[in-house]
């Protein structure tokens, strides 16, 4: 029941107006989702991953605010061409927030959600493959955990 000012950066507005890699791609190797309609924030990533475990193509769809759209868009640009190992190790929500020129504090969760969705995709990919690389920890990454917490909280509140 409180509002806070949202002075978005130029980069956020640019990406909001002209998102990169938006929409579905054909025959994705893996898709992943974070958030849900109850959160008012939901991102779906579609990834095409090649035999060398490199992100060959990636696109997104986003149900959410400008920060949500911008962070999802920047993530697609950041990890395209990266190996999954490198993505897992280098992609953090802080990096995403920095790349969009900063976010108002109340919007950090958008970066967390976007990174959480990517990390879920990586996990899902190896699950589909049936073999897990040694660098992939069993324990959830912090962004995966926080995405889960947000989803559970919104579900709980919306059922009240």
């Amino acid at each position, binding site marked *: *029941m*409180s*509002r*806070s*000012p*949202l*002075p*978005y*950066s*130029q980069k956020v*507005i640019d990406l*909001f*107006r002209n*998102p990169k890699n*938006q*929409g*579905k791609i054909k025959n994705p190797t893996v898709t992943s*989702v974070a958030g849900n*309609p*109850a*959160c*008012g*924030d*939901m*991102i*779906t990533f579609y990834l095409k991953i090649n035999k060398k475990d490199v992100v060959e193509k990636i696109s997104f*769809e*986003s*149900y*959410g*605010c*400008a920060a*949500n*759209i911008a962070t999802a868009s920047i993530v697609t640009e950041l990890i395209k061409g990266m190996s999954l190992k490198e993505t897992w190790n280098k992609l953090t929500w802080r990096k995403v927030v920095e790349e969009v*020129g*900063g976010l*108002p504090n*109340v919007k950090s969760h958008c970066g967390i959600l976007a990174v959480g969705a990517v990390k879920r995709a990586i996990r899902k990919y190896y699950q589909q493959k049936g073999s897990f690389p040694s660098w992939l920890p069993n324990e959830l990454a912090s962004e995966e955990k926080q995405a889960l917490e*947000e989803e559970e*909280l*919104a579900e709980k*509140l*919306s059922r009240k």
Partner: protein
Amino acid sequence: MVENVKELIKAHEGIKHEVYLDNENSTMVPNEIIEKMLPYYNKRSYGNPTLTHKPGWEAFETIMESAQKISEFIGAKILEEITFTPGATEANNLALLGSILSKKNSGKKIVISEIEPISIIRVTEMLEKFGFSIIKIHVDDKGFVNLEELQEQTDKDVVLVSLSAVNNEIGTIQPLKDAVRIAKEKNPNVIFHTDASDAYGRIGLNVRDLNVDMATINSYKILGPRGIGALYTKEGLEIDRILEGQIGTQRLWPGIENTPLIVGFTKASETVFQDFEKNINHVKVLRDKLMDGIFGNLSEVILNGPKNEKRAPDNLNISFLRCEGEALTIELSLRGVYVSSGSACSRRLLQPSHVLVAIGRKFSEAHGSILMKISRLHTKEDINYVLDELPKAVNRIRGIVGSTGID
């Protein structure tokens, strides 16, 4: 962060037309009202109304005449029943806290509805910490309070009932007269307050006919200046001050009276009541045109609140499904259409508007809600422009959503 805002504002360069529909959250003040106010800053009535010199007596005269006019507009008995406050938030705080303070030894229950404005809800949350129990009457799917529940709940321990006359978000016109009668029949000692900010200047409002003890009204909601509102307190009702300081012409609100704002508020009231029927009809015709146009041009839209004469004439609140509200407000802003949303994304917490949740909207429906309020300054051209831009904006946002977010 201010640098960011400069860029955001710059991003709007080249807009062909601008339509401000966020009259819920702040309004532009017409020139005629500003011009009426200006002389009161440095030409006349700039004195303190309690002091013994000409500018002081002028201020006294101005304030008394203003209070007299406002008291007449709401059907009050005498001008002393009007207390000017810095706004509706302050008037609501004064009404609730002031009456509780003066009734220290009465009951410990307060009755409100679940769709009251934030200031009412927050004050009752504060009173809860001091041992009061707060009862929130439920509303139906159009936002009407359940009168049976009101009767049931207004027992002898209830000291205060506060129900707004018109809901600020979804425009529901409450059966206030019935609510007052029911509450007072059940407990004659109960104090009845109404936040009438969204009724004043929109629907007929007569405090004596309604038999309320206190009523809040607000200047900016009728295109007067911000920073001024008023609380009506029925003659003989005892309520305490909630702020202490130098008492001037107003027993219930200390500090130096803000004469120019009082003048602006009064002028705004005169303007709206001068041609009341004509003004309201103009607003209603444009609101209906906007509503019909949206429902005719877009699918997956839901009206929030009642559709008939039980809806305030200026209010339009629509949920655009598969469309997140904050993203839509920004997209519309870049097209020169300024609105607000009940989405959680424009708020601190995940919960969307408590009003929309109370009328049974799913979170996903509430997140896509847009609130628009028409004023007498709007024209047919404005509405046509909105009707051109809105579908483009909704479709672009829905394009980004794709198949994500389908419930």
